């Protein structure tokens, strides 16, 4: 078929294929994506739009990690705002209380979040379905209470002020364009990491666990350890996002890392599409822009929010990305295989 020499890109259905030189092949989407970032970064000078795009970038990072956990490994987490918070508070405490440089803060954020994810993940990931949802929710609540009550370290409910901005040598990432490119550069690295994991042996193992845990175990995959590794990976993504958030807004308060934020993160993955990287990007963008679109009738934001979650989950279980692609294919007269069984045996 397609050895390493040339890469032929083939439409799944219509057999149309175009030859692309192989060294360019696998990294084409990244180049396009990087090009898009650079273009938007240069073209948009208005600080507000850069700031909105930066927040979208930070949310995308979280969505990418959660997408690996929920979309590929099929494990739900209702407490991921806790890792987002751990990342933010670790760097805040390390840089302000102990005077370390922000990059030590980053290392601290990653190691603490990773450690907590390991300790919490071991027992939690033995659970499944509702119990896993409740276990992660309980964990998220406890961490939120910890942020609020540990006043000496976290500044308690009134928040943590004066987090230093990021700087490399004597160049500080003050200007929104600089921070925009830093965040979206991290997102690009995140996308490459996810893509490489998905296309590797680990990615296949993940999807096999999602499709049929029994068969995966029969193929010698240590499903519990694998779920734990992905849980830690998604926690690291969230903590890096927390680090970037803390140094961007230079103020954090427990309210930003509560249960509603965890639900918003899950919504990003759900809307984008459970097992698609670009879906995570789409979901993050939509969710970050939603309050902006709704600001005129802000009363309805919660109603619209709840509706989106329900409607997407009921009608488009695979999420908007796949939904749109399927509609696009349907409009081209393709026959798409509708996976849902007939109504008769939809019982568990």
């Amino acid at each position, binding site marked *: 078929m397609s050895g390493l020499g040339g890469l032929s890109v083939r439409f799944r259905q219509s057999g149309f294929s175009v030859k692309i030189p192989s060294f360019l092949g696998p990294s084409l989407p990244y180049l396009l994506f990087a090009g898009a970032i650079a273009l938007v970064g240069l073209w948009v000078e208005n600080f507000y*739009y850069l700031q909105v795009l930066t927040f979208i970038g930070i949310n995308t990072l979280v969505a990418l990690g959660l997408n690996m956990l929920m979309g590929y490994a099929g494990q739900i987490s209702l407490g991921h705002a806790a890792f987002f918070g751990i990342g933010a508070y670790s760097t805040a405490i390390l840089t302000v209380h102990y005077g370390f440089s922000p990059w030590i803060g980053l290392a601290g954020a990653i190691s603490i979040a990773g450690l907590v994810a390991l300790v919490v993940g071991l027992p939690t990931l033995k659970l499944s379905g509702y119990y896993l949802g409740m276990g992660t929710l309980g964990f998220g609540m406890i961490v939120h209470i910890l942020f609020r009550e540990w006043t000496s370290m976290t500044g308690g409910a009134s928040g943590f002020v004066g987090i230093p901005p990021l700087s490399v040598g004597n160049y500080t990432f003050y200007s929104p364009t600089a921070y925009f490119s830093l965040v979206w550069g991290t997102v690009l690295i995140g996308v490459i990491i996810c893509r490489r994991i998905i296309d590797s042996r680990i990615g296949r193992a993940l999807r096999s666990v999602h499709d049929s845990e029994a068969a995966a175990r029969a193929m010698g995959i240590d499903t519990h350890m694998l779920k734990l590794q992905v849980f830690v990976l998604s926690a690291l993504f969230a903590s890096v996002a927390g680090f970037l958030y803390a140094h961007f807004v230079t103020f954090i*308060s427990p309210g930003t890392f509560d249960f509603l934020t965890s639900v918003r993160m899950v919504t990003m993955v759900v809307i984008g599409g459970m097992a698609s990287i670009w879906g995570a990007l789409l979901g993050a963008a939509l969710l970050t822009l939603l309050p902006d679109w709704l600001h005129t009738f*802000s009363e309805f934001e919660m109603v619209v929010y709840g509706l989106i979650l329900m409607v997407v989950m009921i009608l488009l279980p695979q999420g908007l990305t796949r939904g749109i692609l399927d509609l696009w294919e349907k409009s081209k007269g393709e026959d798409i295989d509708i996976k849902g069984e007939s109504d008769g045996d939809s019982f568990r």
Partner: protein
Amino acid sequence: MKKMSIKTVLLSATLCFTISLLILPRAWAESTWKIGGIFAVTGPASFLGDPEKKSMEMIVETINKNGGIDGRPLEAVIYDTEADPTKAVMAVSKLINRDKVMAIIGPSTTPTSLAVIPGAQRAGIPLISCAAGNGITQPIKPWIFKTAQSDIHAVAAIYNHMKKIGHTKVGIITVSNAFGESGKEQLESQAPDFGITVVRAENFGAKDTDMTAQLTKIRGEKPDAIVCWGTNPGPAVVSRNARQLNIDIPLYQSHGVASPKFIDLAGEAAEGILLPTGKILVADLLPDDDPQKPVLKTYIRQFQEKYNSPVSGFGGYAYDGVRILADAIKGTGGDLAKIREKIESTRDHVGVSGTFNFSPEDHNGLDPSAFVMVRIENGTWKLVE
């Protein structure tokens, strides 16, 4: 796994462009004084943001009715932060960079104010916060002002009243949010100045439904009085629980519950409760020579005419903020540095929340006289000497 359908390639490219196109800059007019407002209109702090938004819209309308400022009308652009720091930061940046406002009123809560201060400072835009947290104006930040009565004055008013009656031991119970923490800090730090010792400090969740355990612990320390620092509905539950435990020692509340809603919620448990409040609640009981009386009267009349709902002291913060800003804009032609100067040098500005005397060292401009002590007697507020 080498295969990659062309679809994802096109999808990723169009995705990034659509996002940036979605939020194209909209054209804006130059002919009005554009000021921004960010309040927690919905969400947990809506009892603050909602009246503040209404008051701002009302005062802008009245200013424009009598000719605007230097002949140009005032235009208010108001966003809802839902008391969420991230939304507040985005709203401020939208006001500054897209709507190109010249000054900002709000936000309503302390955490959101602390979150937006760096942005306003960097952009060099005067911001008048409606939150009470002390960290907003301490240490002094050139562009940041505050019209809400500070917790320092509220605690001073309570402790003054206690000193007069001879209470020396106090038990405090505070809500576990920013307002509660700032109150607890002041209650504990100012106590020695009035010869009072805090014998017990407890806290409760904003949504908690039963505080009898905390009150029992406080009662065990035999204090002379109890101070409850929080915003509805928590303090109403505390008052009821105190009545159930028939705790007969006096119960003080904070200015956070200085609104008719508290009496309605606490029911007859509100009888005899003392609390500091802006003069707005007892406007008609004020002696006629009180300079604030006419301002309060007009504010209350206008508010009830426009919204036919009871007035709340919190709306007054935004009302004063806009009036101070309007006076400062006069004659400066929109030069932000001059406006900042004029705000900072505002003297004897009689507002709803008190008489403002700003100075380079005091960006709140209020003193304990902004507060008066009231007692709740058969369902209404009564001034206490």
